[in-house]
């Protein structure tokens, strides 16, 4: 090795070391803030529940077993935990429905905004973000005010003579769904708008020119081209929906629980931290599997289109 090469080599090594040093603060924060709590949750899920909450430092798989099974208090036999399973299924169903509804409502909204003139577009995007200025809890209680038996919808329908007695809307899955769609709709509209804004509308004209009807243009040209926005929006809506806590607890009335409420219950009244931790990790796994499945499917669709 010539002295010159040696110098270059040293220089490269120092450069690499400096990069690590400079990024160290960020790495420490990422490790502590993101991975740290996750590790705590993971460890807690394998410990024994303390009598007044908290955990006893004694290894146990009870937490994990109780995610889907329950131990009979008398004969210690294990049976299937219907309650937990129904909460899992309800969460999945409501989250998928929320995502689909948000997509169905958000798509035309984003298309409408993207086809406005530049100046008006900014105004519309601004209007879409207004709900973010208000606390989630307050928005959810506003929803409650609309849906309850003496609320806006029922009063209106009774006054119009459509119905004679109020419809029970509150504390149903429908109420939770309506609330979640309302809360998460902007998260769908914004990424959809971002990719529609980039859409070259001359391609739409080219589609019409080549005998595609408006529906065919939507299916063959617009949707394939704004798919990244649809995927991003769906992810942004699906993930928080699955773990939603405030909306189901206010609009579902504690009766129609979702995963978020179940987890909260284990850390609160249930005093079963290992079970709460195990459910949390299960939730995370469901999200990861769902995302992998979704992205892969959507991605391969993209490829087959060319």
């Amino acid at each position, binding site marked *: 090795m010539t002295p010159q090469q040696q110098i270059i080599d040293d220089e490269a090594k120092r450069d690499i070391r400096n990069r690590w040093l400079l990024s160290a603060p960020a790495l420490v924060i990422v490790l502590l803030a993101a991975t740290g709590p996750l590790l705590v949750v993971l460890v807690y899920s394998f410990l024994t529940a303390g009598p007044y909450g908290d955990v006893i430092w004694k290894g146990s798989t009870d937490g994990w077993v109780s995610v889907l099974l329950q131990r009979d208090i008398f004969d210690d036999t294990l049976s299937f935990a219907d309650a937990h399973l129904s909460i899992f299924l309800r969460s999945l169903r409501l989250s998928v429905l929320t995502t689909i509804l948000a997509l169905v409502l958000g798509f035309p909204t984003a298309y409408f905004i993207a086809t406005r003139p530049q100046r008006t577009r900014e105004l519309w995007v601004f209007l879409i973000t207004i709900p973010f200025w208000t606390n989630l809890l307050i928005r959810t209680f506003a929803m409650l005010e609309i849906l309850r038996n003496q609320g806006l919808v029922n009063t209106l329908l009774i006054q119009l003579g459509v119905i004679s007695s109020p419809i029970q809307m509150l504390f149903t899955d429908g109420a939770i769904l309506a609330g979640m769609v309302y809360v998460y709709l902007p998260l769908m509209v914004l990424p959809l708008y971002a990719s529609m804004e980039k859409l*070259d509308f*001359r*391609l739409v*004209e*080219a*589609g*019409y*020119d*080549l*005998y*595609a*009807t*408006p529906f*065919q243009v939507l299916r*063959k*040209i617009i949707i*394939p*081209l704004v798919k990244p926005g649809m995927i991003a929006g769906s992810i942004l809506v699906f993930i928080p929906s699955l773990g939603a806590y405030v909306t189901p607890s206010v609009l579902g009335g504690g009766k129609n629980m979702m995963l978020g409420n179940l987890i909260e219950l284990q850390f609160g009244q249930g005093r079963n931290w290992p079970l709460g931790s195990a459910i949390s990790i299960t939730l995370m796994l469901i999200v990861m599997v769902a995302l992998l499945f979704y992205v892969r499917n959507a991605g391969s669709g*993209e490829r087959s*289109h*060319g």
Partner: protein
Amino acid sequence: MTPNNAIEIRGVSKFYGYGEHRVAAVSGANLAIRQNEFFTLLGPSGCGKTTLLRLIAGFEFPQEGELLLYGENIAAMPPYRRPVNTVFQSYALFPHMTVADNIGFGLKMLGKPAAEVDARVAEMLKLVRMEQYAKRQTSQLSGGQQQRVALARALAPAPKVLLLDEPLSALDYKLRKEMQIELKRLQTETGITFVFVTHDQEEALTMSDRIAVMSSGNILQVGGPRDIYDTPANRFVADFIGETNFLKGRITAIENGTASLELPAGTKLSAPSPESAKSGDEITVMVRPEHARLTSAARGEEPILSGSLANITYLGTDTYFNIKLADGEAFTIRQQNRPGEQDTHNVGDTIGITFPPSAIRVLRA
């Protein structure tokens, strides 16, 4: 209606904006485009030529007038029902499809069976000499190749009329020249009526069977390239097509359709009189730079005009002489360079200008 007209435009107007901001992009246009014709809409940007094309394509709808395609009024028909196809200025190829899928799109939308689509796509690829690119992504193609795909895509459904919106403007000079010949070949081979929009007068002159010159939403003149170049209808057309010298003048007398003219410098000329002109009218005399020549004393020529040489520009094939006339007006001569001939003129020289009587056109002021 004459059956050999592919397109007839009758009193078509298209306005943008409302109330006092209302602007006519096309106003009261009348035009007949014949079958199997290479027809060009020519004009500066904003003259309404693209709007007129979009009206034919169906991307815009006229507020007034009739638009006939082979005798059928299509003014209110949506674009996906019109048997016309467009080659877009930006090509507008679908980025999520292969070359072959792009070309086959129109046929698929028409519900043609897959075998027929494939056969037609192969035929089109051959027509535009892109056979080996069928499976490529459109983003992997050069500008000229994208252009060919756009052409093939628009020709594949065998439209009754092909509309081309400045398709060559994004190409470099050499490629543009090639594509001009290519387009002309495709038009002859397919026998489809082409309606071509351009602001490039040279392009229009070389390719078209007939040209419509447009300005601020009006069609000023329709005719063959020669008619438009040699006998422009007015000053705008004369100025827009090619280079022109304009001289102010006055008609002193008209006899048997020949007008005697007097220029301010006292020069007397005679030329065919424009219609409905009368003695005493102020007119404009037009002389093309290549029709005028510097007088040579050796040949004993009498100058029609004289002035001082302001600038000489050597262009390879030709030389431009910019001359300042005695009354301060500018006059340009374009003279072909011949082998062995050395130009002996210098800037500042006083020189004479001459042109044959047939080079003079009289335009209404």
